[in-house]
């Protein structure tokens, strides 16, 4: 597995506050990687250290397989959480400037800018000043500015915060398109629903430390505990007597069964069909929201 980005025990302390306390994470190539955590967990600080905006007290940042250099930063597209534009500049000038900051010449960037503005339906606004644009349009310009130089790694800090639904789907399509083209996306968010839909890998941090990391599917399987969902007719009261079943919770026509860690789902099912008319019996994966809350509130994982 090739890693696009790797952090090794990165730490940052402000005064007496340890913002990041030894974060280690591995971002595989061609994936969408979610850096998750509640507000104040250290996500933005971590990202700023990846982008070399602030220097870590200790630890290492590797990108594209080697310690990060300044040249590497030009292959990264970065959209910070707090984002803005020069209000008095025109859309095109602004984008040309953002391109120049990453080493693109004006004549290289102009055709790409035209193409992108077309794609986000802002072609008619190229000569307008940023301050004349609506907030949604400014968000599109910010997005174009982030991807204009065709970065191999996209780092987006809370990209969906404050987006209208149209821009949300625009951003989402773009991320999926990026992954399809073999590029890597790191996005930080506390919105679990979106992360669940988009991310292949996650790293959950809380209070500056990693509490959970890995491939999302594997994590779910691991953390699902041994939970099953049952839809059946018959004497449901006898469920508690079945060996291997630890807890039974009925909720509107469905029954949630929590099995003992060593119990086997198949064997339990065979027991159940003895006295129940089973319509549905399936292993239940916890949603990310649950994992998140469980992990952050200190439950062992």
């Amino acid at each position, binding site marked *: 597995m090739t890693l696009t980005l790797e952090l090794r025990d990165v730490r940052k302390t402000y005064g007496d506050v340890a913002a990041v306390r030894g974060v280690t994470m591995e971002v595989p190539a061609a994936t969408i990687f979610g850096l998750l955590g509640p507000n104040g967990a250290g996500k933005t600080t971590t990202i700023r250290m990846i982008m070399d905006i602030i220097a870590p007290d200790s630890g290492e940042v590797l990108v594209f397989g080697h310690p990060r250099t300044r040249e590497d930063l030009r292959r990264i597209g970065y959209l*910070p959480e*707090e984002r803005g534009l020069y209000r008095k500049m025109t859309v095109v000038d602004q984008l040309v400037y953002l391109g120049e900051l990453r080493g693109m010449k004006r004549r290289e960037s102009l055709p790409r800018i035209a193409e992108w503005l077309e794609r986000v339906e802002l072609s008619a606004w190229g000569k307008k000043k940023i301050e004349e644009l609506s907030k949604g349009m400014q968000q599109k310009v910010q997005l174009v500015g982030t991807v204009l130089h065709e970065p191999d790694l996209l780092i987006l800090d809370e990209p969906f915060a404050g987006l209208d639904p149209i821009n949300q789907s625009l951003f989402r399509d773009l991320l999926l398109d990026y992954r399809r083209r073999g590029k890597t996306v790191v996005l930080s968010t506390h919105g679990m629903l979106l992360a669940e839909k988009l991310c292949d890998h996650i790293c959950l941090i809380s209070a500056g430390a990693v509490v959970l990391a890995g491939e999302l599917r594997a994590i779910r399987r691991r953390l699902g505990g041994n939970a099953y969902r049952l839809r059946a007719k018959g004497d449901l009261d006898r469920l508690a007597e079945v060996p291997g079943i630890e807890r039974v919770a009925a909720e509107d026509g469905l029954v949630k069964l929590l099995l003992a860690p060593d119990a086997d789902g198949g064997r339990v099912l065979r027991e159940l069909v003895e006295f129940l008319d089973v319509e549905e019996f399936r292993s239940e994966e916890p949603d990310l929201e649950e994992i998140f809350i469980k992990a952050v509130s200190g439950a062992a994982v």
Partner: protein
Amino acid sequence: MRPSDAYVVGKREYLVRIKGWGFWFATFGLPLFMAALMAVPALLMTRGHSAQRLALVDTTGELAGPLRERLASAEREGAQVVAFDLRVLPPEPDAAAQRARLDRMVLADEIDAWIWLDEEDLGRGRFEYHSESVSSWLTQEVLQGVVSEVVGAWRLRRAGFDTAQIADLTRGVDLETVKVSEGGSRAEGGFGGVVLAIFLFTILYAVLILYGTQVMQGVLEEKTSRIVEVVTSAVRPLELMLGKLVGICCVGLTQLAIWIAAATLLTAPGVLALRTMLPEGLNVPSFTPGLVLHFLALFLIGFFLFATFYAMVGAATNNMQEAQQLASFAIVFLVAPMFFFMQVINDPDGRLAVVTSMIPFFMPLVMMLRIAVKTPPMWQLAVAYTLAIATTCGMIWLCARVYRVGILMYGKRPTLAELWRWVRYA
């Protein structure tokens, strides 16, 4: 440090400003404004040639004639700033009644003022002047001069001198100022030199504040619009800061270049338009290349000295109000020379001038004055420039450290202790 990145930043700062209307407004507006400031009062004075209607009662009977002659000749020469329309009234037996009537004439606006010359008063060395406005110092001074002259001649005549002798004895002398400089003495209107000094001083003061404030606004704009984080992910804060300072400095230099070119053109020999506008006897001061070089050098030093301070203020604060409060510290250093610039011009090698020009934050403005009126000794120039340049380098270093931390800090304004901690961050 990658110079090409600083260049990209600087280019943006430069172009954005040059393309804006504000730059051209200041480039053409400021000189016009300054010219208006100087020319309008002068114009009003000459236009206000509406002569003072002055009534004269001469009880001696010997002064009215010479006084009228003296005023007429002065007007012919065009030397008098104030003109008088003299009405000689014969003295009446009842002096008190006549004086009361004259006062009424002033109030009725038939005359502007009246004077009373009689032997007794003149013997005591004074005469009376009655007017609604007693604060017209210029009128009074001219009048006093003319009357003194006439009365002096009258006294001499009574002492037995004849008219020709008197004219010869009382002829005045004129002061001709010659500026002595290393490159040989050049005749130059003393007043012209003063005008030049004040002119350069004012321009330097204006551009230092103008561009310092622009740096502060620029830093604040990037900080408040949050674009700074995208920018610093691509360029180092030091490159961003230097690019910004140099870019805005170049805007200032462009403006000065336009002004210097215009001034050189206008003061070139043969440009009659300007010559005819100037009062007689005022030489047009010349822009020597040395003077221009000093001016540019002092602008560069002053710019980096104050712009770095302004950049720090912008980086450490969150909005314009906060920034302006802190920026007033810089204004103090820029405004202070306004209070002693006359002394410096009058005595460019005096202790005040020498000491203040050695203090780096005063140096650009004070040195500009000194150089414009008289080239200071070489060692003083060397010491002042060295101290100022060293301080400027220190300010750039300090600014870089505060800036680097400040641009990413939002929230409350840092205390001095916190600022110090920023400086010490590795």
